[in-house]
């Protein structure tokens, strides 16, 4: 009797494993959904955001079926290269280093970065020992390392949301992030205790030429399709509509 129960449980778990581990093949986007308003997870577990809407609009135009999966930032480019996914999206800056490994579409968003500081501080002061929080492994982190080097202490977090938690907890003097992300956070969660430093950084060298959708190097035709569709969206006003929805 016991043997039968145990065998059933074993078979049950083995089947669950196969059900969980198999995935359907479509245009699978990987993203790290911790970056409102570009990509984020709402409290129903759904992935939403500006990038998601743009991608969905493109897919609708091209008649592709698109799915989005949440993955940690470090694993995005490796997973794309190994073939786990067909595309990457989500506030990914187009940089020369990344262009060595993947193909990007034309930028669908020109990015700038800014700092978030406590509201009673008149302006951003970068001096010896300032502690700034940033998302690990991003070009934002690289910019800080190259620009300020050892003068400041850079705290790296798995997600920018964890950095904000530490900013509230006063472990950080400032958080450095993409402009819309920090604007959105100050508006929604800043609770009148934080503000933008208005120390806007526009550095094509580090922040890249903008955000692009990444594909594998052996898929130039996919890039062409997406560029074409993006242009169409800009021409027929869909792009502007989505932009206004998120950034105005």
């Amino acid at each position, binding site marked *: 009797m016991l043997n039968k129960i145990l065998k059933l449980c074993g078979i049950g778990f083995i089947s669950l494993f196969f059900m969980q581990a198999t995935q359907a093949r479509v245009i699978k986007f990987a993203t790290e959904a911790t970056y409102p308003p570009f990509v984020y997870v709402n409290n129903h577990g759904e992935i939403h955001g500006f990038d998601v809407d743009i991608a969905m609009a493109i897919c609708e135009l091209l008649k592709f079926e698109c799915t989005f999966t949440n993955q940690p930032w*470090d694993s995005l*480019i*490796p997973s794309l290269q190994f073939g786990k996914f067909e595309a990457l999206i989500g506030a990914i800056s187009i940089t020369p280093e990344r262009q060595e*490994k993947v193909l990007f579409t034309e930028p669908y968003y020109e990015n700038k970065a800014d700092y978030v500081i406590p509201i009673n501080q008149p302006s951003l002061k970068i001096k010896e020992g300032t502690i700034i929080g940033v998302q*690990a*492994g991003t070009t934002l982190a690289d910019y800080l390392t190259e620009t300020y080097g050892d003068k400041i202490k850079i*705290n790296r977090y798995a997600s920018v949301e*964890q950095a904000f*938690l*530490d900013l509230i907890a006063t472990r950080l003097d400032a958080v450095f992030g993409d402009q819309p992300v920090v604007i959105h956070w100050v508006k929604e969660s800043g609770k009148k205790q934080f503000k933008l430093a208005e120390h806007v950084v526009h550095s094509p060298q580090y922040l890249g030429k903008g955000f692009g959708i990444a594909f594998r190097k052996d898929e130039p035709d996919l890039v062409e399709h997406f560029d074409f569709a993006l242009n169409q969206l800009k021409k027929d006003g869909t792009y502007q509509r989505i932009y206004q929805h998120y950034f105005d």
Partner: protein
Amino acid sequence: MNLSLILAHLPQLIQGLITTLELMGVTLLFGLSLGLVLTVLSSLNRWYLTKTINAFIFLIRGTPLLVQLFIIYYGIGQFAWLRDTSLWLFFKQPFACAVLAFGLNTSAYTTELFRGAIKAIPRGEIEACQALGMSNTLMLCHIVLPRALQFALPAYSNEVIMILKCTTLASTVTLLDLTGMVRLINAETYASLEFFLVAGAIYLLLNGGIMALFGYLEKKLIKPLA
């Protein structure tokens, strides 16, 4: 296998290794001391002490270390009123939070270990001490602790290796230990395999070192007593 790449990042790896060793050292000191204190308190046979200690051990053993770490690091920061006290000077430091979490964790397992070791002492020896009219302190120092040490030392070597493994979680709260450094380098260079292999080799070497140290301790401390 890109050796030049590894050499280029050697300073970072060494820095990470130093942080790992620092974490391990302080955690060991804190965890062992707390474990000893809790063991002694537990042996006093006061029901309120024993019950509290048992509850503490139950909580620690029943939840993942990662949860304990996050409660201490991120959770404490949630309370604004706490941030205004001088306690915050401690909790503000990631190193302090990590050591606190790792130390509490290892102290729970250490207490269990020591309690088990004390229980394993043959009843006859305790009775002999009492028959000879030894005071509790004398008995503790000359018979109980040495005998318990004899039983506990081999098992404690496993616990020290556990502490080493715990330190890898420090990178989740912005500390750059060896694992954290390797993740950082991995994000910059995407050369996954090389650096994880190097880190793995270093951890195995550290393991070997700990086992060798305990082998030496056993020879010095246990054999003379046997």
